């Protein structure tokens, strides 16, 4: 300050006004455009700096008036301190605003995949992720922060469901820790977090991609033959099922084949909920054609009804049994109620473990093997259950002659690959890459090829099967048959796992469960520390005794020497 000649100092103070105007210009530009891009920010920074420099030269003049040295020094110090804090603040602001990160972890744990970066970077409108969780998990927050760094249109919020009841209402949140997406006034439930399931890039990016594409799979409920209806609520209604489908991002409509000249082309799945009268032959043929062309059907049957769908079932090797399942394992309850806690190995029932689901009035299903069709039994009743043939009896009991001893199956999932030699996985993979030509998937293909590192080999074998299965969506026919219809009706839907049985079935049928972006889950490298007992012992002695004792010994020695 002292080195600058007086005249210069005289003019330098006007920097305050110059700086002020530049800073204001930056502020106005920023607020008007509502985008804090480089220009308004740099204007603001330069302006503030000029203002500070000007102030430094301006203030001594004030102090001349005061004529007091100590106050001058004090004010100088305050001004200087303030300016340093502001400069540091601005530098920090810029570093946060224009982030740059290098991920040194071997498996790039904290780096989002190129597909995610592209989607988030190119978001045309603001997208918001809402996590209904009062206490954010640091890992989830870290992931969301990472997403936010990729683009300005990505926002997230942790919502306390106990306080923001309006939000809970708006998004239809049922349980804590649900994750919802909001984009362009569309709302979508993504997943529910739990101890086992934390927020992952795979599910988040795929969910975002779906909501941007506005892909809302169309689900039809067949009507016109006394079926259960999504428009009814109550005993014969499926309104709970309908609303939970809508929450899961599906469009739901009823379908009356007699009214329509054309079969709908947009059906992701058609549900036939317990017809009471037989379907017309033409209708069955339509459904059959739909299924053969890679469609998906969910059939639910009430015991002892004729549906007219028997030819279709026969083609798939499914036979309905007219006997009624009685479950002896449930004490003090209607014997016609069946409790299931034994599930098949299938995507639909994968997460159920030994949870319960309840079925009132069920019939057993049997499946014969048909070539090219893969059938998995989904729901198996207990050992104590049997299929009763004589319903006129006062008290049901098992008669070895006419009844079948459990366990019985009341739900089957069947799928048929339309391609020949579908077992050949290599061929399937080739098909995969040809099939989807959208830019994102193209990139993802090449990407996943590149990442064939030895570390991920282990997981490869698992995920490959899923991928080859799910990517065949054009060509695979899927059928789910339940010998029960009550489980999805309003009174029963929310009981135990019933709703999940229904929803997961539709998800599997509509093929929305699979991931269209082939993002690999982030995994650690598989590494162990193979310490021998000797090595562990050595560290123990060194760390706990020898080294600290050495420190204390020197302390004693220096103390003694000082004396």
């Amino acid at each position, binding site marked *: 300050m002292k080195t600058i000649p007086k005249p210069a100092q005289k003019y330098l103070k006007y920097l305050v006004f110059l700086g002020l105007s530049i800073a204001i210009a930056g502020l106005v530009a920023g607020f008007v455009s509502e985008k804090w891009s480089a220009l308004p920010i740099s204007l603001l920074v330069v302006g503030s700096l000029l203002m500070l420099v000007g102030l430094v030269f301006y203030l001594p003049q004030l102090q001349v008036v005061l004529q007091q040295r100590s106050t001058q020094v004090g004010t100088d*110090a305050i001004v200087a301190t303030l300016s*340093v804090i502001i400069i540091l603040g601005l530098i920090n602001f810029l570093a946060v605003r224009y982030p740059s990160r290098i991920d*040194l972890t071997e498996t790039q744990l*904290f780096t989002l995949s190129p597909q995610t970066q592209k989607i988030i970077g190119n978001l045309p409108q603001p997208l918001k992720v809402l996590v209904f969780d009062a206490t954010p998990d640091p890992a989830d927050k870290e992931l969301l922060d990472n997403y936010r760094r990729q683009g300005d249109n990505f926002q997230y919020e942790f919502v306390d469901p106990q306080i923001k009841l309006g939000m809970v209402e708006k998004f239809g949140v049922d349980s804590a820790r649900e994750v919802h997406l909001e984009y362009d006034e569309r709302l979508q439930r993504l997943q529910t977090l739990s101890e086992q399931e934390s927020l992952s890039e795979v599910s988040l990016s795929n969910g975002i991609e779906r909501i941007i594409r506005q892909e809302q799979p169309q689900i039809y409920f067949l009507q016109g033959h006394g079926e259960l209806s999504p428009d009814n609520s109550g005993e014969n209604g499926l309104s709970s099922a309908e609303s939970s489908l809508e929450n899961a991002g599906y469009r739901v409509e009823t379908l009356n084949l007699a009214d329509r000249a054309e079969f709908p082309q947009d059906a992701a799945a058609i549900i036939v909920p317990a017809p009471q009268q037989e379907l017309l032959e033409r209708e069955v043929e339509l459904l059959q054609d739909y299924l053969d062309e890679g469609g998906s059907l969910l059939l639910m049957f009430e015991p002892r009804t004729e549906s007219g769908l028997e030819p279709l079932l026969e083609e798939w090797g499914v036979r309905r049994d007219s006997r009624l399942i009685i479950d002896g394992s449930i004490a003090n309850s209607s014997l016609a109620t069946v409790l299931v806690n034994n599930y098949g190995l299938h995507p639909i029932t994968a997460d159920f473990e030994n949870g319960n689901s309840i079925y009132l009035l069920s019939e057993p299903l049997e499946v014969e093997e048909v070539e090219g069709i893969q059938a998995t039994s989904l729901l198996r009743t207990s050992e104590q259950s049997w299929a009763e043939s004589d319903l006129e009896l006062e008290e049901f009991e098992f008669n070895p002659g006419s009844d079948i001893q459990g366990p019985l199956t009341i739900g089957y999932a069947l799928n048929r690959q339309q391609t020949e030699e579908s077992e050949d996985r290599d061929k399937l993979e080739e098909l995969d890459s040809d099939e989807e030509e959208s830019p994102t998937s193209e990139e993802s293909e090449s990407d996943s090829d590149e990442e064939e590192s030895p570390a991920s080999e282990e997981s490869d074998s698992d995920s490959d099967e899923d991928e080859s299965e799910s990517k065949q969506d054009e060509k695979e026919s899927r059928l789910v048959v339940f010998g029960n219809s009550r489980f999805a009706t309003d009174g029963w839907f929310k009981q135990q796992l019933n709703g999940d049985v229904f929803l997961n079935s539709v998800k599997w049928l509509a093929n929305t469960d699979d991931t269209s972006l082939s993002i690999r889950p982030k995994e650690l490298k*598989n590494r*162990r520390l193979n310490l021998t007992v000797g090595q562990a012992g050595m560290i123990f002695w*060194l760390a706990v005794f020898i080294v600290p004792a050495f420190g*204390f010994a020197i*302390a004693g020695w220096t103390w003694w020497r000082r004396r």
Partner: protein
Amino acid sequence: MIAISNIIAIFRKELQGYFTSPFAYIIVGVFWFLSGSFFISILLETSQEISLLEQQGTPYPIDAAYIFLLRFFSALGLLSLFILPILSMGLYAEERKRGTLELLATSPITNWSVAVGKLLGAIAFFTFMILPLLIYEAIAFGTADPPLQPGVPLLAHLGLILLAAAILSLGMFLSSLTDSTILAAILTFTLVLLLWIVDLLANRLPSPFSDILSHLSLLKHYNNLIQGVVDLSSLVLLMSYIILGLFLTAQSIEALRFARR
């Protein structure tokens, strides 16, 4: 050039002060004992957990070295919160008490050089303190299969030293304000603890404030570094604390120079 040789002179004097003080060695002994205990207990705990997971047949790959590194450095960061204020408390308070501060303040060496030299001395001493840990790490990570890449552990150590430098720098400033070393240590500990947990408070606030406050958090940026992410904003923030501490120290000595005249 003269400034640099001044800094080196101050640095050497400061380091010598630590190495000839029995008190400093007691701190070192305590630190070695605590960090060593942390090391071995976290190591055993982690390997037990992993072998349990293996028995359950977990399908996920586990990086034992990485998990251990994260846990150990988290513990080490916390331990440093308690140890570092003790290292920084005497930097100026001791001089003030002995009456040598006026000498220092009026000496031809600039306040900046003195502050930088003292800070470097304290950082060097802390680096000396963590040296034995490298031996344990060498033994433990030497058994890693497949071998460990050096990037993440190196960054973790750098993160620890940067964190230490930031805490020492702020501690040095507080030490220059008082002639009571205990008070300086308590003030430093309070400030650093506040900066450590500030992002917990930040969660409760509305948007712009919560972002600003959580950016100030030492824990967040330290975690970033020990996890293996070189985040420019983390480096900038820690450097900012260092510079701020140095600047404020120089200012406070400057104020002293004029106040006594």
